[in-house]
């Protein structure tokens, strides 16, 4: 008899040793809050969508935006805004359909896959938003260069002093620094929250994947 079979014998005999919860206690449990990882993913993802919606609303009212509007670049900013909302709507739809597919009655591997897929939709969304913002920021930087009287004025001053090269370097450095700081913050956010939240799930999923060689 191997070790596991010995354990099996004892396992079967020890059924009387378990605690017994009464119907009342079980009933109370049903009304307790779940701490399931799926619930956390849902809460965090909705927060992310809301956060970006709020940010884009706030941005559209900012002084920067007013400055852009004064340049009469609506033919560029309006399509950009529409694209922004389309991205949000599209990913919300994908996220929702994936979320609905998470079924605790699936087999373990499929359940893990559907959770990871749901989470991936939000990650892809965030990456898309970052890329989108990066591109539109660069586009606006170029437009400022071409049309903004303040920048053109500053450019001319630098040019008069023979420092035009410095002006470009400074401008690009500042733009890169701002983008770098934002990306770093995102990276930290993802590493911390999702690293902790999905560590065990990823580990178990990889373990299952290893089994299907």
């Amino acid at each position, binding site marked *: 008899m191997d070790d*596991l079979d010995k354990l*099996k014998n004892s396992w079967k*005999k*020890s059924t009387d040793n*378990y605690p017994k919860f009464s119907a009342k206690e079980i009933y109370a449990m049903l009304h307790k809050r*779940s701490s*399931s990882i799926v619930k956390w993913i849902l809460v965090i993802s909705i927060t992310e969508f809301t956060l970006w919606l709020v940010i884009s609303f706030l941005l559209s009212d900012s002084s920067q935006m007013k400055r852009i509007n004064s340049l009469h670049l609506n033919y560029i900013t309006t399509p950009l805004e529409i694209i922004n909302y389309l991205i949000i709507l599209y990913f919300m739809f994908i996220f929702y359909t994936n979320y609905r597919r998470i079924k605790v009655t699936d087999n*373990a591997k499929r359940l893990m896959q559907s959770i990871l897929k749901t989470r991936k939709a939000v990650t892809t969304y965030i990456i898309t938003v970052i890329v989108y913002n990066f591109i539109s920021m660069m586009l606006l930087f170029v437009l400022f260069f071409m049309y903004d009287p303040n920048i053109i004025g500053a450019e001319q001053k630098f040019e008069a002093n023979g420092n035009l090269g410095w002006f470009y370097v400074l401008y690009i450095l500042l733009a890169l620094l701002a983008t770098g700081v934002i990306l770093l913050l995102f990276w930290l956010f993802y590493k911390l929250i999702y690293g902790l939240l999905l560590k065990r799930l990823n580990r178990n999923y990889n*373990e299952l994947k290893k089994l299907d060689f």
Partner: protein
Amino acid sequence: MNSELEQSFVQQIEENQNLIHKICRLYTNSEDAHKDLFQEITIQLWKAYPKFRGDSKFTTWAYRVGLNTAITLYRKKSRTVKTTEFDNQLHKINQEEYNYEEEEHIKLLYQAVHQLNDIDKALVFMYLEDKDYGEIAETLGITEVNARVKMNRIKGKLKKILNP
């Protein structure tokens, strides 16, 4: 909330609660964590219950939800203090067949199983519950052949832990 549904559910859980306790026993090692996981499994079962149509046995259905909760959904409490007292109480052997040596060996076996990873524990759990390889494979989403291979590896792993 449909109280009739709730009543029938609570009754099913009360009658079959050992099944959940057994899962908690392998995945937790303190009384607090045991209760916490038990509660989470119960909540997940309750959430899925309206869709339980009775075309499979309640226990078969509950095994799957219970294991999925333990492996995938459950977030362990960060601070769990291990209490050996609770552990000992669970693997007590009946007085009449008491055998010190055997009890010590069983205790070591449980400790070894606790050191396995979550997936290995799931396989051990279903093995202890006399599930066939077809059902083990189906529950985890792997092939039957791989379930067998894995089970043999786990036996080897346990031997290594017990005889380092």
